[in-house]
């Protein structure tokens, strides 16, 4: 079976671009706080969702709707409605993180396929199986803290499909368990669907030296001519002890393209591309590249060498936790 490419779409135009570029599956979200890319100008209203799902289905692609923030106490109805609307829009599955919401979806929408979001950080086989048994989850998106052998070990112990990230922004913390962003800005991935939000970013150019601040904290300084990453907290530059450096993670993005054969051997079903906040140009390029890679693998051809560096943050790439030395 050819590995499934799961591609992001922040807008209907990006979704159409992904379908045309050969994405097997596209994931997207409603234009509100119910999904973890609640950025200005992004996402789908109900009509756009219905039309986009129809477009994808006409072309043989699937659509997954991410409802992967943690419902706010007192306002769960907003999230419940999102699940119901995803089903009525014809979504092939919903991607959920919150246990309470999974419980709700399993009870009230039993026929709507449920995937476990990376935001739930199910990092071992016990957890994967527990979510499957408890909430009927059919696929788990594994957190980006695992090495390839650990992924293989999980797949050896479960029947549940696994999906892993292969390209794009990289969380260095266990996903869904990080409140760095709300500590500095008051807005968090779990509660608001944003991390290091643009509304709290300021750039200051001092004669070509570009300071990036988040919530008033200067966390990156790019010298003239150097690449300028977005000031995401965990990839900022800090001082501790005698050292000033990217203490948590360098401003790199994940590219596990060359690890695809190993991931297939490890039993992974689907390869996920990060970047619902990115343009249709990005989507087209990345999907085409990865589609080519999985098709080559399927046909027994050598893996094509990628040319995706320019699309990545700080223009530098890492294979992240997939190689154990990352830790």
């Amino acid at each position, binding site marked *: 079976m050819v590995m499934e490419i799961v591609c992001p779409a*922040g*807008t*209907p*135009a*990006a979704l159409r*671009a992904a379908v045309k570029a050969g994405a097997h599956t596209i994931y997207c979200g409603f234009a509100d706080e119910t999904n973890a890319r609640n*950025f*200005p*100008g*992004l996402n789908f*209203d109900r009509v756009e969702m219905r039309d986009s799902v129809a477009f994808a289905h006409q072309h043989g692609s699937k659509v997954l709707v991410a409802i992967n923030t943690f419902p706010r106490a007192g306002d769960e109805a907003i999230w419940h409605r999102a699940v119901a609307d995803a089903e009525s829009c014809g979504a092939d599955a919903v991607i959920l993180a919150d246990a309470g919401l999974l419980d709700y979806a399993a009870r009230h929408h039993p026929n709507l396929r449920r995937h476990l979001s990376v935001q739930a950080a199910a990092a071992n086989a016990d957890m994967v199986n527990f979510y499957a048994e408890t909430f009927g989850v059919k696929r788990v998106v594994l957190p980006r803290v695992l090495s390839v052998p650990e992924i293989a070990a999980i797949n050896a112990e479960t029947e549940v499909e696994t999906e892993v990230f292969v390209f794009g922004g990289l969380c260095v913390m266990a996903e869904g368990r990080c409140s760095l962003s709300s500590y500095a800005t008051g807005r968090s991935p779990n509660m608001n669907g944003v991390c290091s*939000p*643009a*509304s709290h*970013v*300021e*750039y200051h*150019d001092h004669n070509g030296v*570009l300071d990036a601040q988040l919530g008033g904290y200067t966390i990156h300084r*790019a010298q003239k*001519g*150097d*690449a*300028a*990453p*977005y000031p995401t907290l965990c990839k900022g530059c800090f001082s501790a002890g005698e050292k000033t450096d990217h203490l948590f993670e360098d401003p*790199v993005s994940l590219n596990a393209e060359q690890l695809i054969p190993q991931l297939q051997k490890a039993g992974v079903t689907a390869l996920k591309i990060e970047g619902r*906040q*990115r*343009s*249709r*140009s*990005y989507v*087209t*390029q990345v999907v085409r590249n990865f589609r080519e890679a999985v098709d080559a693998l399927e046909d027994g051809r050598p893996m094509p060498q990628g*040319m995706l*560096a*320019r*699309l*990545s*943050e*700080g*223009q*530098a*790439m*890492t294979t992240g936790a997939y190689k154990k030395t990352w830790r």
Partner: protein
Amino acid sequence: MSQTSVSVPRCPPLLAVPLRAVPLAPLSASLTAFSRRIATSHPGLYRRLGDYANTPFVIDPTDLPLVILLHPGNGKPTITLTRRPVEGAARIAGPLAALLGLVHGGFDGDALFFSRDLVIEGDTSASLALRNAIDDAELDLSEELLNLTGPLAAPVHRALLLLERRTGLYLTRPEEAAW
């Protein structure tokens, strides 16, 4: 880890230099009319702008001797060209090629930003909303222009394609991105 870079073409002086002398008021009026036409044909653009549908943007093509002040005006946009520095809630600066490439979906905004071909100042959130709204609108400025030119459409189209080839600027929506 790997590093690469791709260069964004600079606007040829042949195009840029005359702009130093051209009177800007009539040009501003034409662009305003043009932008209103686009606003009417792409209402979704304003819905996506959301909270920023009335936010003044300064668009600064760094290889041209002017800046563009865009007032989205809740669906009734105004474009003012000026050679003097102006204030806006957000400023987006970069070579004309980068800006046109963004509009036409030929370039990825984040990638241009990471490589510092694009510089963003002021309200980052507003810039992001504008970028995302434009990306979804799938604009083709040449096509919009041709709709205006009526009987001249065919020769204008040929001229635009020639200009596109010569300059490397994205004047139309490409079938696919360049890289």
